């Protein structure tokens, strides 16, 4: 099945294979969203790999929104489409803080005690990636396993 071209909206391309649903989730494009969503997974790329693509119709995502997916899809590119033409291309950049994407593994951290707060980390280093819990100040080990 061919996924239709969109006239207006946002195309998130080059998503790490298998991560499209997480991207939809993190961007809040799931249940409470009115835009038409197309999700394509495991699309072959030129170099023999695969990628996922998410298309959102009639909605232009903001840079601050798409930066939230930097942890799970660092290679993603974002094309904003108006009247079937790409009007702007963005790449994702890791923000200085990440909210509700990574969880703190410290069992004694206040964020793990049924309090009305989300997990919240500061990016203390980009290369290599290092995250520190804003609450207990512990560093996240093995970040991939801490993704919510």
């Amino acid at each position, binding site marked *: 099945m061919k996924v239709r071209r969109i006239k207006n909206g946002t195309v998130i391309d080059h998503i790490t294979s298998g991560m499209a649903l997480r991207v939809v989730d993190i961007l809040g494009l799931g249940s409470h969203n009115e835009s038409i969503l197309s999700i394509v997974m495991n699309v072959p790329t030129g170099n023999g790999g695969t990628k996922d693509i998410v298309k959102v119709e009639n909605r232009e995502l903001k840079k601050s929104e798409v930066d939230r997916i930097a942890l799970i899809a660092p290679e993603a590119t974002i094309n904003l489409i108006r009247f079937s033409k790409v009007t702007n291309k963005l790449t994702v950049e890791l923000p200085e803080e990440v909210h509700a994407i990574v969880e703190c593994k*410290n069992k*004694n*951290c*206040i*964020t793990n*005690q*049924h*309090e*009305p*707060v989300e997990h919240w980390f500061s990016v203390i280093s980009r290369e290599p990636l290092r995250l520190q*819990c*804003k*609450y*207990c*100040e*512990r*560093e996240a080990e093995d970040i991939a396993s801490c993704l919510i």
Partner: protein
Amino acid sequence: MNFKGRNIVSITDLSREEIEYILKVAKDMRPFHDGGKVSKSLEGKILATFFFEPSTRTRLSFETAMFRLGGNVIGFSDISATSVKKGETLADTIRMGDAYADAVVLRHPNEGSARLAAQFSTKPVINGGDGAGQHPTQTLLDLFTIQSEKGNIDGNHIALVGDLKYGRTVHSLAEALMHFDVKLTFVAPKQLQMPKEVVEHVRASGLELDVCDDLGKVADVADILYVTRIQKERFVDVEEYRKVANIFRVDMELLESTKDDLVIMHPLPRVDEIAPEVDKSQKAAYFRQANNGVLVRMALLQLVLTGVGL
């Protein structure tokens, strides 16, 4: 520099200038604590002390500080009679405290609780210790003691001794000392040495740092010995504990070869790691250090509630 309304959650939130300012205000508090001078600068103000776990020294120190400045105190130090036991969240307890008091001191068993409290409180929150995390007023009183005993923080060779792995006071103190021009030595049995992240962080800051397990050698050259307790529970083998505890004990024999103006500090309570005979030595600063806690807490309350020193 305006501290009015500010939260004191972690020593890492404070710059060198801010730390020095707090220490200066604390120094000015001395005549109002043990010099007979009277201040009413916090008259009409109410401090809430929310202690979700007991810490008598910290609580009494904050309460004394508030009373010395003419303020009042409400709070609890036993959660069994509160709605916390019924499952109330910390966020809700803080919102409640907010309505009664002008500032909140929080002691809580979970790391990060003070950061959370600061988020939900419209009044300044002072961290009185959060689990194995931060205890910034302890760190400030340690810095104040170094300054008042030595005249200066810069220029000292400071040895942190004992359980450096689990002791939160030494982690925070090491973090804070990175703002200053000091030489550090971490002296601990190998299994209780400072966590790798702290060692790396100190090295990256450019401070001169040695890591070793020989107290005798360091004692000869150090300006300050900051001693912490080695807990028996950290050892599986009791014999091993006895051996280690003996090697890291500060006694009169060890003191003989130290500098005349050595300063010995300890966050207290002390058990066996400093021999009682040492108390009589002028080098023993740990009881003066404990008393300094009131001055530092007077300074913080004064600053977060009024914005200016006395």
